[in-house]
């Protein structure tokens, strides 16, 4: 059929070419004609569809995967030794330490050449001191001096070893028993330095699984303790019980959802806040703590011997029984007029620290004479405490009232803090920048020392402290004035007069 049509088409072509084309066409036809080898029907019947499907599949998968192909990362050659050397060569470290601020540079190092109660000699000049935490004047006890002397003769100065390894002297045990008796606790444990006390207690009990809720104004030692423990840390606004309740309820709600095993929980506060001078509202706090089942850690460093009917501190002040607060930590360098710190609580709590309190296990124990002299100051505290505390409270209230009248300064704490002998004065109105306020107060202090012979101290903070939240508190500068029972009304009057004069002279108009 098709073959006899070809010559008609090929009239004008050379003969052999025509034959060749004819050949091709006929071959193609025999292949593709119905029944031919590659006719679609035959092709499919002889499983040829598999080939088509395979091609389609390959195409589809190519298209599918094309979109996901990431631009291939060029494999980097690892740096050669020389290149690393060069990098190390190039690197320039920062200096080991940073720069000091103007206020820090302006702080003169005072040398106390003599001490007698609240009168001291600063660089040889007689001065009234408002910078010592010896609230009850026990650092001048005559018996203390005697006891100290005897102890140095008998025991030497140092203990030459940690408590575990022959650093436990009989006096340390006596002192621990006395502290426990005084605090109304089962046992007490002695630390050899105040700054390492709370920061050792907290990590002994809390780890990454546990929860710590602390006031945002807590001191450096507590901050360090919390961060060392690696526990989850929540803070509440300073002395704000509503905010505390909010935090505790939030945690309780989370608990309900997550159903995790019960972890250890602590609320950490200070009896008297070192950086503000006011007191934690322990009475109400106790109710919250009981309700939400938290253990309470109270740092009584500044309140021990100062507050309460028995002088046990802020908990005592609010009439809380001594065993109700689980963990009490305190410094012996304040009203007890020595050095060191302690923790009191039940036996399990204390015994656990003898294995896990890092500042206890791995530090040399305190010199025996300091333990001996602390025993003596505890005796004095029992005997003369009530009388001196009365006087101290009167002095504190009087000074707070007087200081409220100094223009340009504001007393922190208000009515609730009246009994606290740690008085912080704050620039009012607040300075533009923290640095500016800091420097102004440094100048005021220097002025008061130079012209009025009164030693005050600015509140000094380190950049390693994390006050929370930093911006709001950091705007203003606080200044502690430490009133003691030894101060007389004329001292208090002189201090406020001096401050008024200094503020008038130095405050920018």
């Amino acid at each position, binding site marked *: 059929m098709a073959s006899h049509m070809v010559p008609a088409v090929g009239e004008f072509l050379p003969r052999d070419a025509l034959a060749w084309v004819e050949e091709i066409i006929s071959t193609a036809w025999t292949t593709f004609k119905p029944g031919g080898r590659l006719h679609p029907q035959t092709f499919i019947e002889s499983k040829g569809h598999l080939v088509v499907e395979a091609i389609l599949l390959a195409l589809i998968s190519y298209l599918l995967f094309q979109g996901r192909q990431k631009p291939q990362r060029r494999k980097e050659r690892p*740096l050669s030794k020389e290149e*690393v050397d060069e*990098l*190390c060569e190039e690197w320039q470290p920062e*200096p*080991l*330490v940073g720069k000091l601020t103007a206020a820090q540079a302006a*702080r003169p190092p*005072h*040398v*106390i*050449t*003599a*001490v007698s109660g609240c009168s*001291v000699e600063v660089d040889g000049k007689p001065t009234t001191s408002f*910078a*010592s935490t*010896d609230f009850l004047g026990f*650092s001048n006890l005559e018996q203390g*001096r005697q006891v*100290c*002397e005897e102890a*140095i*003769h008998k025991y*030497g*100065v*140092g203990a*030459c*070893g940690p*408590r575990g*390894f*022959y650093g436990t002297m*009989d006096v*340390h045990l006596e002192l621990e028993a006395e502290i426990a008796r005084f605090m109304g606790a089962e046992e007490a444990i002695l630390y*050899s*330095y*105040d700054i390492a006390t709370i*920061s050792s207690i907290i990590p002994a009990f809390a780890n990454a699984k546990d929860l710590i809720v602390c006031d945002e104004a807590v001191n450096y030692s507590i901050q*360090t303790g919390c961060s060392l423990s690696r526990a989850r840390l929540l803070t509440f606004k300073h002395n704000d019980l509503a905010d505390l309740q909010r935090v505790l309820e939030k945690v309780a709600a989370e608990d309900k959802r997550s159903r995790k095993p*019960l972890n*250890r*929980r602590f609320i950490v506060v200070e009896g008297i806040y070192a950086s503000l001078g006011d007191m934690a509202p322990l009475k109400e706090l106790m109710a919250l703590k009981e309700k939400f*089942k938290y*253990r309470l850690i109270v740092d009584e460093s500044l309140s021990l011997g100062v507050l309460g009917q028995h002088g046990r501190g802020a908990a005592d002040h609010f009439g809380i029984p001594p065993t109700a607060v689980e963990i009490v930590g305190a*410094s012996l*360098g304040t009203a007890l007029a*020595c*050095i060191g710190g302690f923790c009191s609580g039940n*036996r399990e709590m204390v015994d*656990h620290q*003898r*294995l896990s309190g890092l500042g206890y*296990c*791995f530090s040399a124990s305190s*010199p025996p*004479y300091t333990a001996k002299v602390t025993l003596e100051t505890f005796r004095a505290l029992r005997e003369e405490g009530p009388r001196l505390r009365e006087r101290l409270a009167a002095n504190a209230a009087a000074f707070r009232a007087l200081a409220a009248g100094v223009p340009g300064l504001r007393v922190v704490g208000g009515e609730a803090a009246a009994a606290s002998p740690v008085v912080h004065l704050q620039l009012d109105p607040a300075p533009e920048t923290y640095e500016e306020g800091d420097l102004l107060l440094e100048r005021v202090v220097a002025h008061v020392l130079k012209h009025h012979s009164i*030693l005050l101290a600015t509140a*000094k903070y*380190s950049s*390693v402290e994390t006050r929370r939240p930093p911006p709001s508190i950091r705007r203003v500068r606080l200044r502690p004035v430490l009133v003691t029972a030894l101060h007389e009304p004329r001292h208090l009057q002189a201090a406020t007069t001096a401050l008024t004069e200094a503020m008038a002279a130095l405050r920018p108009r």
Partner: protein
Amino acid sequence: MGTGTLAPTLKHALLAYATWTILYIFGLLRDFVRNRRGKASFKGYAPIRQDFEDFFTRRIYYRIHDVFNCPVKGPPSAWMDIIERTPVNRQKPLMATGKIKRCLNLGSYNYLGFASSDPYCTPRVLDTLSQHGWSLCSSRADAGTTPVHEELERELASFLGKQAVLTCGMGFATNSVFLPVLAGPGTLVFSDALNHVSIVTGVRAAKGTVRVFDHNDPVHLEQLLRQAMLEGQPRTHRPWKKVIIVVEGIYSMEGEVVDLAGFVAVAKKYKAYIWLDEAHSIGAMGATGRGVCEHLGVSPADIDVLMGTFSKSFGACGGYVAANKDVIDYFMAQCPAHLHATAMTPPAVQMVLSALRLITGADGSDRGAHKLSQLRTNANYFRSRLLHMGFNVLGDWDSPVMPIMIFQLAKLSATSHEMLRLGVAVVVVGFPATPLLTSRMRVCISASHTRQDLDYALQLFDYVATKCDIRDPPLAASNLVFLGPADSPPAGQPLGPPNEWVPLA
């Protein structure tokens, strides 16, 4: 390298594991019975001790807690009075029985013998006490600095060959509070694997990044350092701000002297700073007591911060950092211990100052120099004799710290009891202060020990070693490199009757 090895032999390892396994199984059994009887309830509070801590304390620690925290009456000098306590009775506290025993003290860090009263130091200490009292109840920065503090800092700076010194009332805090001030964000701190807990606390409290290198291994440090330099800070990959290497002069639980030259070379090459903790080496090492720098011939100028404590060689309490003036000024403005903690007590400051003057010979006598040479002679004599007896003694020659490996927990308490029975007070250390397998006994030699004291102790060591099987001749023999002079014939003499417990006067 050291004279002993920390690696236990197979026998020791198996026995030690067996001890722990038995203790653990019996502990579990006892707990099973206890839980059947009803567990203590905390009424909605989580138990204050975690499960394992609780188990360890009750079932293992309380079995042998009488070998730790042993109370002492009187100063911890060469001989001291140990207060007898009631034997272990379940988990009840140990009570004093009212008897004491005079024991040879091989446990205290009384390297130069300043622990008891001293004819030069004590009168000066009492003078300072009457002048400045015992506490100023104020931080150094507020109103806690006396002229004695300043004098000590000046003299110590010139003794150490540094521009300035700042003291702190506690050695532990000198590491744990001062280190975070330097190691702020962006700082890379390299800490030795066996650094003291105070350093570990310090670097954990710091905001910088910490990496740990193998104990006393500058080569490993260099590898880590190069790697860290390439990677930069974690996540941001910014370059590090500075690198601080923290090492100790003498490692207190190993007695080893640091490879300071190696670390200084690495630090110089990579512009890192070095913090050297000389707690156990200051006053104890070096011909004139200036610590490991002098002992190893490294210039103190190559060390950026020299840290040390006063509770060992100086027989007082507290610690110091010595560095360039700008660093010390920064510490005075920024270190929380300087700003918030009670100043070091003046009598202790005076004690350190007087001891320092004795060491330097500023008192006009050669007592200090004599103490130093006596300490070295004593230490090397004792070490060589111990090695001869076949003990596995860790540490280096000249080091007064000699840990003796015991490996097994059960032998730990047996050795301690036996030693105390015979009148020698030694320190024994086990888990958790050391790894599970490397329980050890530790001897600290003092300049106040006489040759007779040491020979007496060595005889007892020989006897107790046989009784408790704590010798390790193959380990010790391979390390015998130096023999100290042996004046008296070694062991074999009959033991004199040990001191007895006597009622307290």
